[in-house]
């Protein structure tokens, strides 16, 4: 659980991410560097009071074991002012009290919201600070409606980030799904080749003779093998021989290929008329 702050009901400050969001334009965010964000955090925590340079140095750097020159302090206050100006709060929200320190401008409204994880809202506490009356009033009450509106900025940002991540994945799926579909269509539309059910009947070192299943009716097999044997001497070139001889039909077919039919590049057909 950590605290976020709403400044003047228009800007959300996330100390953990050092970012400022515009409530009205969630896309508009300013990233501060860590020391500048911690300077703002200190000003908010000490809202209504003047914070001197040494207190900044202690809170922002010394607590982390770092020692820096005053230049670093001035530089980071400058960065902070620019950030606040860019997000629309104006650079006069931080007021310099000469020779004393800095404070938030009079009338600056700070509301604290306690947030669990990224965007879950449990309770909120209102801190209304006014430099005019120097009072610091903290009230705790449930106000989910207000919270949900105000937290819409980071939620929306998170949703946008997720969308940005998901979009290319959607493109990938949009490309892959049609591809898979097309391959499935091609795969299932492919028929077995015509000779796939031909039966190997005689294999020698060089020849593979396969006969049509229709050939096995009657004495077709013997007759079919006779047709095939005419080409045995040519088996070095065309070793795969597919023979069809239907006993009742005075025709015979001998197809010779350089490889098995599905892989063949050359086939020569012979058609016998009896």
């Amino acid at each position, binding site marked *: 659980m950590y605290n976020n702050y709403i400044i003047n009901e228009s800007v959300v400050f996330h100390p953990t991410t050092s970012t400022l969001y515009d409530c009205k334009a969630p896309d508009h965010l300013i990233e501060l560097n860590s020391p500048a964000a911690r300077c703002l955090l200190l000003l908010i925590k000490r809202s209504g009071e003047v914070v001197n340079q040494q207190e900044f140095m202690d809170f922002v750097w010394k607590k982390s074991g770092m020692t820096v020159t005053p230049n670093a302090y001035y530089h980071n206050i400058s960065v902070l002012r620019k950030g606040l100006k860019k997000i629309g709060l104006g650079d006069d929200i931080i007021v310099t009290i000469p020779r004393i320190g800095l404070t938030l401008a009079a009338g600056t409204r700070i509301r604290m919201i306690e947030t669990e994880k990224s965007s879950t809202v449990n309770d909120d506490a209102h801190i209304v600070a006014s430099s005019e009356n120097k009072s610091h009033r903290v009230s705790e009450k449930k106000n989910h409606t207000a919270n949900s509106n105000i937290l819409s900025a980071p939620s929306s940002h998170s949703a946008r980030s997720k969308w940005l*991540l998901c979009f*290319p*994945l959607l*493109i*990938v799926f949009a*490309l*892959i799904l*049609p*591809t898979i579909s*097309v*391959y499935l269509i*091609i795969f299932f*539309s*492919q*028929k077995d*080749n*015509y000779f796939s059910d031909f039966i190997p009947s005689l294999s020698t070192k060089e020849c593979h003779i396969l006969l*049509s299943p*229709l050939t096995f009716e009657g004495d077709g097999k013997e007759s079919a093998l006779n047709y095939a044997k005419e080409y045995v001497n040519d088996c070095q070139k065309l070793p795969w021989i*597919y023979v*069809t*001889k*239907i006993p009742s*039909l005075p*025709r*015979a*077919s001998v*197809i010779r*290929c350089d490889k098995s*039919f*599905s*892989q*063949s*590049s*050359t*086939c*020569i*057909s*012979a*058609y*016998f*008329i009896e």
Partner: protein
Amino acid sequence: MKLNKYSIVLLVFLSTILLVITAYQLYRTKESHHPLTCRAWLTQVKDNISINVLLRFMFRDGYGTVSMNGHKIYQNGSTSVISRMVYFNFRQDGDFYLLTSKNIVKFPDDNVDEEWVGNYFPAFYLKKEKDLYINILNQGDNNIIFIDPIPLLVCKTVLFGQ
């Protein structure tokens, strides 16, 4: 799994390549039907006399050609030449084709006896307005089988100009 920007770009790139290859495959699958051109070597044998021809079929939308080039070998070793082109129209019903010859162009070297050829080949190759029913099976991988009613020939698809 956490995908970084580069992984996603790579995935999109590879998916696009895959899609292009698939589209090409699909194009080839479609292309293998019509129009098509194929080439087949056929030996017709009857009474111990064989006639060897190279057939080149070309099918377009409803019409086509078949060129027939070869020779007849007599038992005494002498030969006759067959060299002609048949122009035809065709109708298709699934794998069944009805081809009707529209014109026969014999080239000058075609000196084979027509009556004799008629014993080996259907009238489709000899005269106009003759029908030829044939079952043509596309076998993928560029092979087409003509069935009549047993395998007559295996025709290899070729690119134009080959």
